[in-house]
């Protein structure tokens, strides 16, 4: 049997509480399978029938980012958290830096709002045919491809000491996207707009170089590398604007 201790909350404004569950072990089991078992049969360790635990998930392949939660204190995806690798009892909690909706479900829309602020897209004339796209050297593609694997899961924000409900820092994941778009030959044409946006309150200057983000990223995105390069670009951009060269 697997022993789970789950931090629960019935709705956004209600008080959190914990409940313990015992779940039978299956082969190659992950945390999602355990939660599915609870959904099927929501009986606590003490034999009490309770409401099933609610959580977010979709792909179960660590691609969509939905099932991110704190597992034994660490922010990660529930689907790729294999029970065999976890110390028991397994503690499941919602992410702490985002508003809790119910049980393990949190609202991460803040991250998508940040992408709007940073103009995280390539401005093209339209999706119609204008012929072949621009060439891009392979090494440049390989440098930024990892950034485009970001699944907006929120791990990097959860672990960042400078990101919190009270701080206005938008966090590493959205910022790194700027490097992706500035590297693309067409996206580069709107580079100035994005760098300008990075200088706004809560932008890149709020990074404190704790570098937890790069340790916690499940996709091994070189976040600190992107932050470093963007620091350089923002500085040069600011100085060149100031001195008008």
């Amino acid at each position, binding site marked *: 049997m697997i022993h789970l201790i789950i931090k629960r909350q019935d709705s956004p404004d209600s008080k959190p509480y914990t409940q313990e569950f015992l779940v039978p072990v299956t082969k190659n089991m992950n945390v999602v*399978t355990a939660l599915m078992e609870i959904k099927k049969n929501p009986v606590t360790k003490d034999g009490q029938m309770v409401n099933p635990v609610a959580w977010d998930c979709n792909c179960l392949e660590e691609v*969509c*980012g939905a099932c991110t939660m704190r597992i034994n204190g660490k922010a990660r995806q529930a689907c790729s958290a294999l029970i065999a690798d976890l110390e028991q009892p397994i503690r499941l909690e919602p992410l702490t830096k985002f508003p809790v909706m119910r049980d393990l479900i949190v609202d*991460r829309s803040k991250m998508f709002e940040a992408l709007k602020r940073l103009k995280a897209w*390539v401005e093209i004339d339209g999706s119609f045919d204008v012929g072949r796209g621009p060439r891009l050297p392979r090494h440049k593609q390989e440098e930024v491809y990892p950034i485009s694997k970001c*699944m907006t899961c929120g791990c990097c924000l959860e672990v960042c000491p400078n990101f919190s409900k009270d701080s206005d820092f938008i966090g590493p994941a959205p910022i790194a996207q700027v490097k992706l778009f500035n590297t693309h030959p067409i996206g580069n044409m709107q580079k100035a707009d994005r760098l300008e946006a990075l200088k706004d309150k809560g932008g890149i200057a709020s990074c404190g170089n704790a570098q937890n983000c790069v340790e916690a990223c499940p996709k091994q995105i070189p976040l600190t590398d992107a932050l470093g390069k963007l620091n350089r670009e923002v500085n040069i951009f600011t100085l060149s604007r100031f001195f008008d060269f």
Partner: protein
Amino acid sequence: MKIIVVGGGAAGLMASLRIAEMKQEVELFSLVPVKRSHTGCAQGGINGALNTKGENDSTEQHFIDTVFGGDFLANQPPVKAMCEAAPKIIYALDRMGMMFTRTQEGLLDLRPFGGTKHRRTAFSSATTGQQLLNTLDEQVRRYEVQGLVKKREGWEFLSAILDDNGYCRGIVAQNILTMEIEAFQADAVILATGGLGMIYGRSTNGMTSTGTAASIVYQQGAYFANGEFIQIHPTALPGEDKRRLMSESARGDGGRIWTYRDGQPWYFLEEWYPAYGNLVPRDVAARAIFKVCNELGYKINGEDVVYLDLTHLDPKELDRKLGGIIEIYEKFIGEDPRKIPMRIFPSMHYSMGGLWTDYNHMTNIPGLFAAGECDYMYHGANRLGGNSLMSATYSGMVAGPNAVNFVNGLSERRYLKESTIEEYKQKEIEAFRKITKMDGSENPHVIHREMGDFMTEHVTIERYNDKLKETDNKLMDLEERWSRIKLNDNSKYANQNAMFIRNLKDMMKLARVITVGALARNESRGSHYKPDFPNRDDENWLKTTKAQYTPDGPVLSYEEVDTSLLAPRERRYDVNVNKKEGK
């Protein structure tokens, strides 16, 4: 004018983008934040005859491969249009910033894929779907900022609203957190709600791929076409919670399938299909693996698996081109596929069938369009790898403007009664209220598991009429048991089990469409294989199945397939008969 798009995967986003480009308003509904849609799980690539490998590829050859791969069941004009648009779409995606893998001179690289002799699949390592999804998400966000697109993420589609003339004029949807049920008006509605893998319990699909939106409009009178054609992907990882896809690109980039026979590796695909080898289409590969494990009895350590072997390939190239799936295998299985061959088995993967639409992607309900995996248009009886991202993107690209044109073409301003809207809304509120009061003895998850197991056992690779009949009976039995379900969650907030119970009923309705369609079709074509009827029967069965809902079950009718561009011929992959005419 306002168009509602339901679904935020490749098709829904592309449709939204196109409508916004026409300066029309879009309200985009999605169960999940659109960036978490199931399109993200597509791995291998997106097909388009860019012809940048000096192989004399052409959109015509792409068309031939697709029709041939689909065993001639697809209507040919739309397939041709898609193949012609494909290179332009790929270039547009490139301009949008999609991070395609590059050649040494900075062009889009192309990889070999199943069912074709040309390199035609553009890709982003092994995460092409994710990159495509991200790119379209970014473009739509741009229009969101401009105010043309309004996103409603975390809403579940409950019903289409039809006016007195039977035109679709809006939807009823439920907020999956607050549980609030609301009606939304629009001039036209596009469903882009993806696949139905959850009907099979465990598949390569995500948890949101339940097919319920398609099932709901089917129950409202839309035809569901070719439901019996379910793609079984040959290479997936068995798992308790789901089957995880191991991309076809693994074979495209040199991976080989084998198992032990008499203590020696046996490369059965290469032996049986010398012309295409490991790159036979998915239906052929899946049947072969199934045969090896079940009929011939070659198992590995007693398990129904065969090897997908990458160990002979350069590890650096593997990381560059297949990093995404290698990571998945390492994380979930804990072995290094660069050193140890992967153990895989076929799994339910994709539905070729879907809502019947005309060539403009409109269903038989005027004003209701369908695009992406939830339509039936491009793949016939079997889909080629790399064509799903293309068909999803292309169909969204076509459906969006067609919806706008449809509304523009209406002769007079239509009137939708307030009472009609309220009626639809109240009906859903009442239905949900009933679910929250369900207090029987059955567990919805147990019923779901039974349905999934039955469907997987009897309505996948090999289909026998007696078993199909049994499955249909089972489904009716499960439906009856459904009414005796107990809801074990009395929460007023984010009540996931209540929503699941509602989904389950709709999944059952669609499961019957699949099963009954398969039962009726006494031939073997593409993914639909009946050992008792092993041959394709063009005389009787070169026709599209159209299922119509009745309370007593699906009623089937048939429609002729438009084969005006390429005459049907025998489909073989042991020799290469699949070439452009006159060559």
